[in-house]
């Protein structure tokens, strides 16, 4: 064994492997505490669910160099102001519905999921909903009967009928609106949001 230099020896690499893994794990755990803190609903990056009571903009932040969500005046969803608890319950139902209907296996949420249908990260702000006045109604109609209301933009790809109840459809809209308030470090980039009152 004398002919093997230390840097090629089994023992040295065993120690290195253990130390490297340990140190990396420690750093990851440390960062995880901080990250989870920063993405808990109600934080600066991830607003509380009651953010759905407000208008949501996606504006260029000059200091950071990209668009970030900005909360505006009160603009209650479906015309009704919700308490913090009510808002949380609604978004929770929306999220449960999104999971139970398997949205993520056609769409992406925050860019993760499947690539058969459009990304939903900023779908609340999508110009496809024509104008602020008709957006909520269009979204509800679409979600409850996507097969008929799909525009498909000429692709022929239609969302299937998933049997959403009126309540579930409203909750999904709430979830989508809330998702649009999350600070995603500028993803998607250069997104041309729908025109809204108070636009600059």
């Amino acid at each position, binding site marked *: 064994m004398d002919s093997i230099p230390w840097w090629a020896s089994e023992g040295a690499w065993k120690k290195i492997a253990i130390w490297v893994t340990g140190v990396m794990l420690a750093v990851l755990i440390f960062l995880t505490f901080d990250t989870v803190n920063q993405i808990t609903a109600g934080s600066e990056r991830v607003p509380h669910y009651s953010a759905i009571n407000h208008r949501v903009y996606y504006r260029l932040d000059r200091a950071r160099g990209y668009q970030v969500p900005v909360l505006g005046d009160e603009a209650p969803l479906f015309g009704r102001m919700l308490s913090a608890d009510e808002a949380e319950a609604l978004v929770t139902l929306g999220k449960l519905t999104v999971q139970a209907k398997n949205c993520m296996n056609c769409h992406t949420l925050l860019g993760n999921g499947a690539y058969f249908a459009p990304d939903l990260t900023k779908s609340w702000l999508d110009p496809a909903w024509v104008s602020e006045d008709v957006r909520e109604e269009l979204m509800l109609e679409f979600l409850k009967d996507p097969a008929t209301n799909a525009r498909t933009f000429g692709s*022929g790809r239609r969302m299937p009928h998933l*049997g959403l109840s009126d309540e579930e459809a409203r909750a999904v809209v709430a979830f989508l609106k809330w998702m649009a308030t999350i600070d995603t470090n500028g993803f998607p980039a250069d997104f041309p949001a729908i025109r809204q009152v108070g636009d600059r």
Partner: protein
Amino acid sequence: MSAVAERLTGGQRVALHYFAAAVVLFAAQTFFGIIAGLQFVTPELFYGVLDFSVNRMVHINAMVVWLLYGFIGSVYWLIEDEAGTELVGLKLARLNFWVLTAAVTVVVLVYLLVQVGAGTRLSIWLINEGREYIEAPRWADIGIVVCMLVFFYNVAATFMKGRWSGISGVLVLDLVGLAGIYLAGMFFTPNVSLDQHWWWWVIHLWVEATWEVLVGCIMAWGLMKTLGTSRRIVTTWLYIEVAMMLGSGILGLGHHYFWIGTPEYWLGIGGFFSALEPIPLVAMVVHAVYDSGRHGFKSTNHPALAWFIAHAFGNFFGAGVWGFMQTLPQINLYTHGTQWTSSHGHLAFFGAYVTINVAMIYMALQKWRGDVWMSGDLPDRGFKWKWSLALTNLGMLGMTVALLIAGYQQSFLERAVGGSTWGAFFAAQLDPWFVQAMVWRNVFGMVFTLGVMLLIWDFVTIGRGERRPMRAAAQSA
């Protein structure tokens, strides 16, 4: 059957069960992939009956499950040889297989027949969790964890009874991580950022940390067996690999934390560490090719060695090169969630994990047939293994390149020019470059499927009626 029983250890007979189920699921994965691929170009196909979301879910779930089956099979295959003693809980291992397989069957049937539920917790517990790759409903999650614990007990206790080695030490610690990480995906939260944060722990820390180390262990054992490489060399390499893989892969997790609400420091940390991830993958290619060359490619099992080498290259290209292409945040901003991602996902999973499982299945088949000859000069010139190797790899490469072209175009038109709106998404999907790429993906998907059929035919027939004994493994220091 009794002759087989004599030839194989108890663990190896259990392993054959796992391998058989794995192959069935591989066939299912391919089938549902083809349907999903066709739906891209003919969206009315099975619309409202077997929608894209269902096919895709079965496609990727079958993949995750069969690869895990393959890994479990591989560990059961080598454990008694490595530990120098008999498996501690043989009956338990058998029972475990049937319980797990029954659960998987039920889950798949529910996916196909029930498909979706109402927006309740009950749906998540019973039907599907709606989170890519780990869609399995919660009851199945718990079942999977229990089965993994039983498996883990069997592995750890067997090594404890027999002897430990560098390989088995790494293997056992790695299995703790692999099973433990799964727990991070087992909860519901309305907060989609938090959800995806932990979801990536499961996905990323599996494929870019614990699975890589697991296949490193299998590869180390495989090279000793097929080539006769010395234990000291493969063990040292394994430690080097663990150091480099976990040194980069653990914090490389940050490359999924660019855009999901997580803090900005992940742009730097994720970009930097994930950019280092290809290094161990290059090292593995060097290791495999160097060893093969040193032994003049004189192996005891040609198909297995060929697939081991395919693993080294596939891992390097699929994970190392295709992953690296989109891992810097400046680029990922535009490629994130496009066919570019899909291109990488396909080549990486195939190159890194399908290949090594196929290699292990060939190792198993050889012994099952009675340690028969599987080197050069096979009957019919070994056309089945050679052509299936060629067709699956060519098919996968063709699909990958087609998807890359689609992804490139999508990054440009949808992300950069169109600002990622719905209109921009469909503009990109309708672009001739994209449509053509999707057609070619399907063509190469068929080539791949042909390869899979040939591969399964070869699994069933190779070594049958072979009289020549296996070539003796080379001895080396």
